[in-house]
């Protein structure tokens, strides 16, 4: 058995060619274009691909961050630095504002998360800023409902996705035509797997927030998942906070991002761990565990 690092990586070139092609179609077919930027590795890869697609010109996209307020501090610094370095506009909209003006109500209880509320803030931002396309880092290997997502995914004037009535997508012809008020979500790295993303980051020497590498932080265990602890999180009586060496496999809202116990300090070590792992990266996401069709239900009403 070969190790993950020895696997022939020629297919990454084809995945990159495809993603760049999709980015350029977005540039040509839409007006107000944003990349949904979470500070996670997938959105960092998107920004890297956009940089390559339009060089030596600046990418024709702004970055849009929907901030739940429950962040890993480092992600925000990383986000600001990246936007400055690329000289692109950074737009931030806050879930807290949506809560304050009554657009959404805060979830209560032990598993409270602002993950679902993000959809409202995102749709409001799309309307406010006249965004007609939002590029996301969604991948079809992440989750069952995502497996049927198109590259160019149409959203009606309510921002809703109709999975049973998607436009057929053939060859490399993408139909981004729409009526006023409607928008598209576009997923250039649809065909990438988690391992592809990591190997691409390694090959391209893409800088990541250090949260993706082993670091020491307070954590606690809930069911089978280790969660990063933050002061606003409620603990159950049997849960206790302790220090551990961990790394993040995904980075999102701190309340629903599971961490792995790990001492991997380099990309090579992280990739070896991922190649050997037996649990999917979303297995650590609390938001997906709520019900079997949790992702599908959230996507229909405007989730990422």
């Amino acid at each position, binding site marked *: 058995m070969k190790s993950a690092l020895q696997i*022939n990586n020629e297919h990454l070139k084809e995945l990159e060619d495809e993603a760049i092609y999709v980015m350029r179609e977005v540039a040509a077919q839409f007006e107000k274009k944003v990349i949904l930027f979470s500070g996670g590795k997938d959105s960092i890869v998107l920004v890297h691909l956009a940089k390559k697609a339009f060089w*030596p010109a600046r990418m024709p996209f702004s970055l849009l961050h929907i901030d739940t307020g429950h962040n890993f501090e480092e992600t925000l610094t990383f986000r600001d630095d990246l936007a400055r370095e690329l000289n692109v506009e950074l737009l931030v909209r806050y879930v807290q504002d949506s809560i304050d003006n009554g657009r959404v109500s805060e979830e209560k209880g032990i598993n409270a998360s602002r993950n679902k509320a993000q959809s409202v803030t995102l749709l409001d931002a799309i309307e406010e800023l006249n965004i007609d396309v939002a590029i996301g880092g969604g991948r079809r290997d992440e989750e069952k409902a995502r497996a049927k997502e198109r590259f160019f995914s149409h959203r009606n004037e309510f921002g809703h996705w109709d999975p049973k009535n998607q436009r057929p997508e053939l060859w490399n012809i993408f139909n981004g035509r729409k009526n006023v008020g409607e928008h598209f979500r576009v997923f250039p790295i649809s065909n990438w797997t988690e391992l592809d993303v990591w190997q691409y980051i390694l090959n391209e020497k893409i800088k990541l927030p250090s949260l993706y590498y082993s670091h020491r932080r307070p954590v606690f265990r809930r069911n089978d998942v280790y969660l990063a602890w933050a002061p606003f999180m409620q603990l159950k009586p049997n849960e206790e906070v302790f220090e551990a060496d961990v790394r993040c496999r995904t980075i999102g809202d701190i309340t629903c991002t599971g961490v792995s116990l790990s001492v991997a300090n380099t990309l090579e070590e992280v990739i070896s761990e991922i190649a050997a792992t037996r649990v999917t990266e979303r297995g650590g996401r609390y938001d997906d565990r709520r019900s079997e069709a949790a992702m*599908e239900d959230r996507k229909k009403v405007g989730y990422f």
Partner: protein
Amino acid sequence: MMNNNGNNNKSLLRFTTAGSVDDGKSTLIGRLLYDSKSIFEDQMDHIRESSKRLGREEVDLSLLTDGLRAEREQGITIDVAYRYFATPARKFIIADTPGHIQYTRNMVTGASTANLAVILIDARKGVVEQTVRHTYISSLLRINHIAFCINKMDMVGFDENRFLAIRSELEQLVNKLGIEDSHYIPISAKFGDNVVDRSTNMTWYNGMTFLRLIETIDIRQDYLNSSARFPVQTVVLPQSAEYHDYRGYAGRVAGGSFKPGDEITVLPSLLKSKIKSITVFEKKIDEATTGESVTLTLEDQIDISRGDLITGAGEMPLSGQDIRMMLCWFNEKSLRPGARYLIRNNTHETSCIIRAINYRMNIETLGKETSVESLNMNDIANVSIKTSRPIFYDPYKKNRITGSLIIIDEATNETMAAGMIDTE
């Protein structure tokens, strides 16, 4: 045909799977993922729980691919689902397409980007109407390689004669449709025979297992021998001090290859120039081949915009306004002669009028039906259109990218049909 040297072969294979309802298509994919150890523990836990809740006796591997809620409830696949797995030899992208009649459009969609079609046949039933339909669609979409998996061999006592009888019937079909490369494998997806591991129940079979076939099948020649084509997606104008006069043309090579110094002709203007540089990001490259996303610069300042086609070595593409094509109709609203639509081929968009339905294919009998007044969803027909401006194309048989187009309803913006340009 075969190439065992993974380093020289394409390391990404896209394949589509098709079969009738209950042929075990989802089970085959589940088995492939399970036996190649591509299923994670949490996914497996999920399937165990779901199988129990749905009252299935054993762990149902087909639940791995049946994604949307409606599908899980009905136990059938209703939309194309994409699946990924990798072995040390190759990475695979599977377009899992539904088998029943009303979703022919999904099979066409999945087939449009596939290198290989996998068609499942129930060994008890043999070649049925849907087998003919799926094989025909694979040949129509010009998939050069087909793997026929004769499944449920356990239900026919692993009988070699049964397999040979089905195989010979399939070979007649393959000859009739002119398919270049076909393979026949007796399997049991449920028990894993000849999927990843060689069957101990069918020692009479000396061919490759299914996994071995898809790991080694050589698809390189499918990309060769086409003329050089570069549809322009967007013009790169940095307008910065450093790149003051820079003008680049961004696109993905749709046929043949381009090199710096090559003479090119731009369509529709027919202006000529030479390639000055080809870049991928900051890196200058010596050659761009089919499938590569690159940026070209030219020796001369000529007017080029999105929708133009840069052509290089080889034959010039065809051009014209009267186009004949095979069309697969996707929408509930039917097509009638005289209707107007938008068409998009490559990055170029124009309008068209439907002039005539020349014939409709009966894809069960492969007969041609004439005097057809309209086309309904999932119909496949030969149609003549007239475009408002000339389009530039190759016959679909020569180039799947420059020979294909979609038809869009201007009122609803929906994609109504897929067309494959035919010049016969």
